[in-house]
């Protein structure tokens, strides 16, 4: 969109095609075997599985990965830190603590989702409220506040784990934290997906402002930016977007860190198409990892194993590449 160069467009188109192919593969991967023939002939069981489980799982994989990638891009740009991710202001640990509370005190997966969403939101609001106590408005204050909230949420999580029944509840808390797209049904994703998509649209619309925020605070102010307010809006939107996903899926590591770096390496820019590509890479990574999680072993594996397995070597590659530059 900015700088309409052919290669970037080609990259985005290729990314989109790859994501669609993976999505198609994802629709037909899983414990219950589905075939196109069976679906077309109207096999009732196959249709049920396809409509209630596979579609939702694939959607969460695509949109979830996309959101994590796009939000990661926004975080890294605003904090001017290549290691920034939504975790930096305590979203993930808030969501985990919320989910643990949900597993202990509520019943049903929808309640756990809601409770974890509330936990994530609470963590973010707390972090941003703490950071607003410092009037100077430095972005490093937000990071510090985030670290404080992160450890608070970890403490809450630990206390909840201590009170949990080790046989059932502790196991489900641990399993939730490991992250998986398993068992997400079409009936439980509606509100999250809609909110998530709205947030994504806002992030794309505010891309130019996000780039302005990447300048120094004083510099951005003298370019006419209300730094504090704008940063708050963009961070809140990006975080809301991530909360929607994390509360459904549990923690998913590395996607938010990896996808933006990949997109920047490929485009060598931070234009709007880089944001798009970052989202696409996130979607590809999560959908691909989810396919592996379902097919690598007899039983379902946590998806983070595969996102990390793909992510860690990439991060090391980036570090080595950075060293060579010096």
């Amino acid at each position, binding site marked *: 969109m*900015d*700088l309409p160069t052919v290669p970037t467009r080609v990259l985005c188109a290729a990314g989109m095609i790859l994501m669609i192919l993976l999505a198609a593969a994802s629709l037909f991967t899983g414990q219950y075997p589905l075939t196109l023939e069976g679906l077309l002939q109207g096999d009732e069981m196959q249709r049920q599985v396809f409509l209630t489980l596979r579609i939702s799982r694939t959607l969460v994989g695509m949109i979830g990965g996309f959101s994590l990638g796009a939000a990661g891009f926004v975080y890294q*740009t605003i904090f*001017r830190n290549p290691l920034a991710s939504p975790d930096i202001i305590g979203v993930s640990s808030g969501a985990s603590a919320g989910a643990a509370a949900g597993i202990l005190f509520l019943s049903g997966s929808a309640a756990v989702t809601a409770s974890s969403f509330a936990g994530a939101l609470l963590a973010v609001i707390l972090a941003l409220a703490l950071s607003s106590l410092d009037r100077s408005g430095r972005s490093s204050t937000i990071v510090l506040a985030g670290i404080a909230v992160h450890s608070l949420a970890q403490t809450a999580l630990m206390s909840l784990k201590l009170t949990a029944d080790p046989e059932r509840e502790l196991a489900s808390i641990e399993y939730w934290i490991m992250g998986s797209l398993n068992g997400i049904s079409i009936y439980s994703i509606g509100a999250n997906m809609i909110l998530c998509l709205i947030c994504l649209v806002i992030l794309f*619309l*505010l891309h*130019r*402002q996000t*780039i*302005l925020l*990447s*300048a*120094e*605070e*004083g*510099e951005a*102010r*003298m*370019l*006419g*930016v*209300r*730094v504090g307010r704008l940063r708050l809006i963009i961070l809140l939107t990006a975080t809301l977007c991530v909360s929607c996903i994390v509360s459904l899926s549990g923690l998913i590591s590395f996607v938010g860190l990896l996808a933006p770096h990949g997109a*920047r390496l490929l485009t*060598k*820019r*931070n*234009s709007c198409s880089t944001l798009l590509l970052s989202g696409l890479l996130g979607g590809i990574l999560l959908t691909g990892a989810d396919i592996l999680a379902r097919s690598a072993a007899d039983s379902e594996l946590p998806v983070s194993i595969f996102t990390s397995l793909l992510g860690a070597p990439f991060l090391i590659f980036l570090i080595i590449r950075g060293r060579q530059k010096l």
Partner: protein
Amino acid sequence: MSFFSVSQLSAGYDREHVIEDISFELEGGCLTGILGANGSGKTTLLKAVCGILPHKGNCTLDQVLLEGLPPKKLAALCGYIPQRSGISIDISALEVVLMGYNPELKLLERPNREMRQAAAQALSLAGLQGMEDVNYLHLSEGQKQLCILARTLTASRQLLLLDEPESALDFRFRYRMFEILRGWMNDRRLILTALHDPMLALNYCDRLLILSNGGIQCVLSPASDPPEKMEQELEAIYGRISLHTCHRQDGARQLVMLKEPEGR
């Protein structure tokens, strides 16, 4: 004719004032340099005028109180070049220049075609022709400064606040930058710039504010003040120096400053 006044400005860091009770007035069309030793408060003064630093006192431009303006209005009126721009992400030089149009754009609006063309022109005026698509981070420090200069000159601002804009530039581009600034001036516009290079200050500025110990030691007018007086005032910053009048090949009078050995 416009009018810029600063009255009783005090500012600093962590409750310790670096500048104390500074007041001065400048008329439109005045390119004003700020000279002072390291730590004398040049940057603090500029940041306080920008409103980036909390401060006491106030600044008015054409009877408009700068402190009362929302960021967008302020940015439409005043441009600022920091010592070093904080841009640290991969972004093209043209996009950096386009940032300068932000005060004229609505929140979700994008720069239009004319803005892009004007931005490309501003880049070539600054000596970076053909470098629109070059990654800003790959530019040399001097080229980065020129790119930021181009960004500041985009929209029609009235007051420029420049913090040692020449420090990273080589000899030729220092003069080029000040020729550009001179060309930008008209009798409604004002420039307030901290400077390191005394020769540029003496030959391009209409007024010189000499800062020392957080206050204004004196105000010089290099074109009319007697060299002996300026020598005396400048020695407070540079130690023993001497000023000499030379003439360029085109006959223009130039002041040259020489460092004399520090005797007793």
